């Protein structure tokens, strides 16, 4: 048993001495080193023969040794049985290491204090690892924040780019840009000023929070003030203290904007204007803010350029189309006019030649034929005169030279004259007239007779089957004269009624030869220039009624 115990003792000493990772050694009750193991030598640097017998306070940093920390440790271990700490310790070469130290009081079988066991672990590696980890964590956190900021800006730029691409129309584009920029930069005001290249001034075009700018008609000369300098210098400018700066815009001051950041809108080297943002509190705009605003400004400039090009193209295309339509309309009109003029001339000339030929040969046409020839000549001469008048009047209207010649006229007489003329035109229609004995008005008799004649011509033309045409002149109210012409003809389809007074419009253009398409257009112009109005009432296939109202003399003038 004794041998066995001795062996165990020996093995145990070997174990302790062999441990590399821990310094395990004994102190006598006063703190002097009694034993030393391999771990102690490795960690602290002393060989056993150098350290045994020395006081363990040698391992403490001098200031702690002076303050009596080793004694305090021993006392505590003695009282509590055990004392532990993590703290700095000193190696033989004077370097420090972070250590975990456990000091245990040892007692013999009789309870006598015989010394201390000390176990020290070098935690430098762990501490370094922890510090490194903390540093890495900090780095990672920073990187993540940076990444998030970058991502956010990227998203903002994307939003701006999408807005720039989505809107071809300048106003909606600028509106969207303002919203996005104010969101992303968390600012109180955003303004886009565009450069008027002729005048070399910046004019506010779209704003958020500075709406008064546009209303006030602010104009900022290039090179002056905040925005003017940005445009002239082609550089972003930060104004952290607006109050003590050269800002010209009175609205910015009135709104007590504290800080401003602006960037030029440049596309292909050309300055289009300025984009600026402002805050109602003092703000230190960062370099990131500045470069972000410049990126936004670059995209905005490109989008503005696109919108302008699109607008220019659209306008040019519309103008070209309108011009083409005008030319087409004129060509069609000229061809119609030529046709309409040649038709009466053909029969007029033919009948006139026939009469001449017959008389030259000493012959005679039979009475019915003679009458038809002369009547046609008379009628077609009238038609020709009317067409020529219409053309002339239209040309006068176009050049604004249609001047009315107002005179006191008896409308009853005027209308009767027109009705009698119309009766000569047709044999198939019965034209009736209901009118007061006289009705006086201040009118241009020649023009107003044109209107009446035109309405009668239409009534005849658009009731090819013949029938009654009722003409009525009345005074619907004191100071007003009303003429209505009603026929039993084709009528006007509902969808065309709004257009019959338009120039060149022909309701039955495909089915009937219908003149120049100027009659009702001219009639309306003439009536309206008399301070009156004209309208049509019709049901398709059931005839039409055209009504004209013009101011008349309140009391009929009796002729002596």
């Amino acid at each position, binding site marked *: 048993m004794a041998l066995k115990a001795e062996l165990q003792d020996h093995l145990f000493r070997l174990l302790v001495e062999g441990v590399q990772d821990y310094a395990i050694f004994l102190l006598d009750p006063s703190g002097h080193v009694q034993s030393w193991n391999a771990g102690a030598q490795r960690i602290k640097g002393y060989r056993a023969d150098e350290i045994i017998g020395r006081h363990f306070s040698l391992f403490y940093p001098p200031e702690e040794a002076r303050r009596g920390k080793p004694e305090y440790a021993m006392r505590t271990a003695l009282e509590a049985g055990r004392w532990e700490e993590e703290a700095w310790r000193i190696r033989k070469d004077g370097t420090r290491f972070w250590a975990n130290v456990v000091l245990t009081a040892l007692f013999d079988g009789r309870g006598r204090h015989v010394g201390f066991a000390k176990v020290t672990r070098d935690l430098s590696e762990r501490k370094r690892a922890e510090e490194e980890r903390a540093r890495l964590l900090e780095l990672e956190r920073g990187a993540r924040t940076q990444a998030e900021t970058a991502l956010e800006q990227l998203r903002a730029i994307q939003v701006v780019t999408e807005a720039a691409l989505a809107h071809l129309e300048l106003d909606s584009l600028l509106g969207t840009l303002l919203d996005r920029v104010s969101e992303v930069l968390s600012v109180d005001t955003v303004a886009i000023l565009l450069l008027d290249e002729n005048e070399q001034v910046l004019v506010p075009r779209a704003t958020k929070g500075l709406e008064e700018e546009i209303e006030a008609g602010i104009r900022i000369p290039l090179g002056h003030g905040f925005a003017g300098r940005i445009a002239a210098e082609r550089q972003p400018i930060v104004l952290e203290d607006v109050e003590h700066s050269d800002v010209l815009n009175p609205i910015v001051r009135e709104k007590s904007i504290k800080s401003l950041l602006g960037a030029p809108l440049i596309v292909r080297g050309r300055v289009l204007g300025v984009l600026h943002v402002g805050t109602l509190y003092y703000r230190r705009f960062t370099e990131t803010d500045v470069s972000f605003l410049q990126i936004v400004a670059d995209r905005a400039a490109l989008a503005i350029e696109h919108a302008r090009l699109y607008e220019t193209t659209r306008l040019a295309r519309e103008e070209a189309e309108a011009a083409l339509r005008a030319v087409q309309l004129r060509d069609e009109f000229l*061809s119609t006019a*030529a*046709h309409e003029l*040649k*038709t*009466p*001339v*053909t*029969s*007029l*000339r*033919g*009948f006139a*030649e*026939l009469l001449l*030929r*017959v008389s030259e040969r000493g012959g005679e*046409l039979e009475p019915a*034929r003679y009458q*038809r*020839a002369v009547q*046609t000549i008379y*009628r*077609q001469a009238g038609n020709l005169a009317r067409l020529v008048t219409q053309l002339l009047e239209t040309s006068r209207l176009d050049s604004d030279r249609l001047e009315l010649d107002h005179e006191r006229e008896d409308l009853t007489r005027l209308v009767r004259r027109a009705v009698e003329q119309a009766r000569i035109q047709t044999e198939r229609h019965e034209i009736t007239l209901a009118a007061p004995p006289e009705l006086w008005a201040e009118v241009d008799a020649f023009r107003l007779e044109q209107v009446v004649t035109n309405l009668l011509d239409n009534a005849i033309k658009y009731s090819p089957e013949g029938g009654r045409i009722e003409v009525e002149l009345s005074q619907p109210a004191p100071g007003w004269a009303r003429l209505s012409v009603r026929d039993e003809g084709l009528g006007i389809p509902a969808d065309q009624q709004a257009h019959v007074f338009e120039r060149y419009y022909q309701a039955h253009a*495909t*089915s*009937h*030869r219908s003149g120049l398409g100027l009659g009702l257009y001219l009639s309306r112009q003439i009536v309206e220039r008399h301070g009156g109005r004209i309208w049509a009432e019709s049901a398709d296939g059931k005839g039409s009624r055209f009504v004209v109202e013009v101011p008349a003399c309140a009391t009929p003038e009796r002729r002596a």
Partner: protein
Amino acid sequence: MCDAGEAGMSGARRLLVVEDDDSIRQMMEMVLESEGYQVTTATNGAMALAALSRERPALILLDMKMPGVDGWEFARRYAELPAPKPPVIVITAAQDASRRAAEIGAQGYLAKPFSIDQLLQVVEAHLARA
């Protein structure tokens, strides 16, 4: 080369005038009749085709712009009728009367406004050729 059997219904001096304008149609009718022609009149293409099914004129004088079946439509249907067919003279107020005639394969044209002499010359020239 007229078919003698149909002499009663047709003749070297029978003409068909297709024109919607009353004044021009009446003028042409009167002028041509005073020169001894027999004139059938129609106010549109449909009436003209109907007239052709009844009689056989030596020449057709055709206006182009007419309501209903106009000159172009008439020419299309006329082309489908069996030969031999009388020649067609186009009467038009258009600037390029000769092109109108070419469009529908007509043999001649007369531009409005025409003189009586022009009308009679065109008619005589085509009748002599036929």
